[in-house]
């Protein structure tokens, strides 16, 4: 159990998944309640060309990922303004374009070997700089969520009334997307382009089944994400499986475990054992 901890690469990987897991898990609760799971996945795929370019140029991946995510967001906003193009369609078009561009670049003769680590992540390859970036992310997400908590809570609950309660819904939406983008460009280095969405959606979806208040849910999601991250690394270390994929599978396992646990938790809360809504007729909507 302790032997892997002797290895510096394992130490860095553990710190990396802890930081990314804590930030991604807490942020993920908002992603789930704002219905942004698809957006989270799309953002991750759309930064692929940026990652490939950064790898070709030999600069830190963050320098490629950040402009790519901004470009994708702008393109989505522009496409969604075209009459007859729904937001969902705009996302799909932009993401496939960006991802296709990334594949073209990745398969070009000039691209360095090891491009697959951009797709599937290389959590054991985390450098000290990567770990420091992840620490920065965790701080940004923690401060951001702390300051935005009240606004996110209102805008997510009741968009129509938000303005009269002093909350700008576009601002809350945009701030959440910025945090999601920041989280994605950092987490993508460890978990890879195809798997990064797992850390945002999986632990939050599990925590949602186990808790009925926002702050406990965020704490639980962060804890579950860290737990799954560490379990995934150990699995990878001993079973020789790919790091990013092992973490992603551990997250899925946590979610699957939450299904029976959630049912159990509900049954044990006497006040919630029956559905009080049923005692009064539903609105005739």
């Amino acid at each position, binding site marked *: 159990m302790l032997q892997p901890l002797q290895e510096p690469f394992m130490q860095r990987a553990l710190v990396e998944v802890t930081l990314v897991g804590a930030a991604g898990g807490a942020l993920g609760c908002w992603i789930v*309640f704002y219905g942004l799971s698809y957006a989270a996945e799309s953002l991750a795929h759309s930064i692929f060309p940026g990652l490939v370019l950064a790898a070709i140029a030999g600069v830190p991946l963050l320098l490629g990922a950040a402009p790519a995510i901004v470009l994708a967001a702008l393109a989505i906003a522009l496409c969604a303004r075209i009459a007859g193009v729904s937001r969902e369609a705009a996302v799909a078009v932009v993401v496939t374009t960006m991802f296709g561009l990334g594949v073209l670049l990745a398969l070009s003769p000039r691209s360095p070997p090891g491009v697959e680590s951009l797709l599937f992540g290389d959590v054991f390859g985390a450098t000290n700089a990567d770990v420091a970036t992840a620490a920065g992310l965790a701080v940004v997400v923690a401060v951001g969520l702390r300051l935005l908590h009240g606004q996110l809570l209102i805008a997510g609950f009741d968009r129509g009334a938000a303005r*009269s309660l002093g909350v700008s819904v576009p601002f809350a939406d945009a701030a959440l997307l910025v945090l999601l983008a920041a989280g994605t460009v950092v987490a993508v280095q460890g978990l890879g382009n195809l798997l990064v969405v797992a850390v945002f959606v999986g632990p939050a979806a599990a925590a949602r089944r186990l808790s009925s208040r926002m702050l406990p849910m965020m704490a639980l999601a962060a804890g579950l994400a860290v737990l799954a991250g560490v379990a995934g690394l150990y699995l990878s270390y001993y079973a020789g499986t790919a790091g990013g994929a092992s973490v992603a599978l551990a997250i899925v396992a946590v979610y699957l475990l939450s299904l029976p646990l959630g049912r159990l938790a509900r049954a044990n809360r006497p006040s919630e054992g029956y559905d009080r809504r049923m005692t009064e007729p539903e609105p005739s909507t």
Partner: protein
Amino acid sequence: MRPEPLIEAAGLAAGYGGAPAISGVEFALAAGQTLALLGPNGGGKTTLLRAVLGELRPVAGTLCVGAACGTVPQTERSRLDYPVSALEVAMMGTLSQLPWWRRPGRAEREAAARALDRVGLRSLADETFGRLSGGQRQRVLIARALVQAAGVLLLDEPFSGLDRPSAEGLEALIVELAGEGRGVVIATHDLEQARSCDLVLCINGRQVACGRPEQVLADVSVLEATYGGAIVEIPGSEGRAILPPHHHHH
């Protein structure tokens, strides 16, 4: 001397770009008065509420709102699993009074608890919002408006789906809150509910009539213009119980 009205609309038109969804709206609501907003689905009730809230700007005419507005919308069913307690929903009313870096503390918590007490829900403060009954949810949202210190309450179909005791309890609460000097606007399908308000405003794209209920609702042509002529009179009720055709779906 007449008191300054809380809401005053003159020749008001508002909409979402293109042709206005409502036009020719004229009314004045004074402190302590309740106004029933009657009209069919798509007739512009919600548009008028949104204009009063300041979400839509008038495209013609004027609209003066002289007090903070608290809105009591219908809860979307998709939000019933939202992870908040009744107390947390009531506390949402404190956010606009706090500087942006501050989180609600003890004072805000107490204000929210007092408001829940006021609407008769103190014992359910820690219950998840989505697990409350429809009438209880309406009361929590009213508590939120009270925490906001709203002088005007805007209620969207507050009685929809409530059983009779819940609806009567809610109505009594609304009358009480108006009696304390608030203005109350109630969008409703229910003519009986409208009869007990101080004013009735009938709207169907444009304003059809506005005045005291005994005048406005006595005129069958007003109701026909409001609901497009498809009203159903309940036999044996001497013309008092008239149901609009959209009563049970919207």
